[in-house]
């Protein structure tokens, strides 16, 4: 069963449009949503959660259509947005207690355990929390009821490196348990490189690439070679800064690019792997230049 199914989701603002977005996440899937600033990641999340009204399209969470009158699907949702609101005059404990009323599957011991692992003092009032501590509390809120769908919008913002690592461990455990799908928006692919099995790129409100991470890391390579003459357009390849006779390109299908170079009489080609982060940077750079990608 698809834990998240988006069909034609659209949102229009003056001078900006999101979508139509089509996306499906199955149980156990961890997808990274990658996009430049203003690409529409937060708007997409807000439309999914329902805190912003979408202009069109349908969304279902764990098999339930999301509409405004039947909102029990939100019990299947763990969400961290750019700002998670809390009652500032209450302690972390009290905020959790209040939230727990709305989620029948809430596990208090799990909430306590996550807070402990994140080294979050729940006895302090939320108004005394730093940004990172607020984020930690929102992580506890998002995970304590073991939801079917996790929507995390740049959750590591403000987190220290230890907390960031703990967050990733927690997410690993949730995904490993096999009852959750995760959509994790981030600018830093390296952060979720070991976690995400899918990379979804959003540019100007449109999904430009939705690919299996391993497929990308398998196909994308860095090619360097020596040629006295500048080689023109190499299929699937983007030239990198280099000086003749040494040339280098990044290819999104290195076999096709290498075959082309061999046809040009270039046989000494050095091929090296790229990290998912490097690939993402290249894709975002190409997106910014108006290029589309094969997937």
């Amino acid at each position, binding site marked *: 069963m698809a834990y998240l199914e988006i069909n034609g989701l659209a949102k229009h603002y003056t001078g900006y449009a999101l979508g139509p977005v089509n996306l499906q996440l199955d149980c156990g899937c961890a997808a990274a949503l990658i996009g430049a600033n203003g690409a529409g990641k937060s708007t997409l999340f807000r439309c999914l959660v329902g805190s912003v009204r979408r202009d069109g399209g349908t969304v279902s969470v764990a098999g339930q259509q999301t509409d405004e009158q039947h*909102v029990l699907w*939100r019990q299947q949702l763990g969400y961290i947005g750019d700002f998670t609101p809390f009652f500032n005059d209450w302690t972390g404990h009290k905020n959790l207690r209040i939230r727990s009323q709305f989620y029948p599957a809430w596990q208090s011991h799990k909430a306590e355990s996550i807070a402990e692992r994140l080294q979050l003092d729940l006895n302090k009032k939320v108004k005394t929390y730093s940004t990172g501590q607020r984020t930690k509390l929102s992580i506890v809120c998002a995970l304590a009821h073991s939801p079917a769908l996790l929507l995390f919008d740049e959750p590591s913002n403000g987190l220290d490196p230890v907390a960031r690592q703990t967050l990733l461990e927690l997410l690993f455990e949730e995904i490993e348990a096999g009852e959750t799908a995760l959509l994790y928006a981030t600018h830093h692919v390296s952060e979720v490189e070991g976690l995400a099995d899918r990379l979804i790129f959003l540019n100007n409100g449109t999904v430009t690439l939705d690919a299996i991470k391993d497929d990308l890391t398998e196909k994308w390579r860095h090619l360097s070679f020596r040629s006295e003459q500048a080689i023109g357009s190499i299929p699937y390849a983007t030239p990198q800064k280099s000086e003749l006779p040494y040339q280098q390109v990044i290819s999104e299908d290195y076999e096709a690019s290498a075959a082309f170079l061999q046809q040009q009489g270039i046989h000494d080609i050095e091929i090296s792997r790229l990290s998912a982060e490097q690939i993402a940077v290249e894709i975002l750079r190409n997106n910014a230049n108006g290029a589309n990608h094969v997937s």
Partner: protein
Amino acid sequence: MFPELLKTEFLANRFLMLLGLLLNVFFILLMGVFDDRAVDVFIGATSIVFYIHVIVMVVSHSDQKITRLYAQLPVTTQQIFWASWLVILTWLAAQTLIWFAYGLWFDAEFEAAQISLLLQRALGVLVFLAVISIAFDLWGCRPRLWFWLYVAFLAGLISLPIIFDVNSDRSGQTLSDLLLATFSMSTGTGLAVLSVLFVGLLLADLAVFKRNDSYLY
């Protein structure tokens, strides 16, 4: 999930409500200093305190982005709307009871029959709050033009009678006279008019709130 939401909303506002009650006690003690202990004076003073409290409540809600919080919980926008209004209604009901108790104990000219006049005052407060609430909720709707049209309408409603009054040498025929007449109607009619007005405004506010484009505030 509505009972849970209502409980949360009451818990979130309980200190403010308690402070309101304490201020009422303070005003009762203060009134003891004056010779004139008419219930109208007491109502005037406590109404202002009530309005200030509602403003503080709205500002605190907005500062903590409580609507955004509720919009992420498994509750409907309709339930969020009613929970907020039920807190205000309960609070005002308590305030009206205090007015009534004050009248009975301290105002020598107060009669039990005057309860409908107190209710009329309370409904007047509610109508005013509903009018303001619609403006707030229209701010969250698209296009924003609706908000400005509403503000212009309110401004017209307030200013036109003044203009008419200044330019008219006839009395008893202006809009302001009509509004004043509404409030000085026989108590039964005044109550009915204000009740219908309040219910109408409340339903309009609900319709506007449900059509908000965003609940991020």
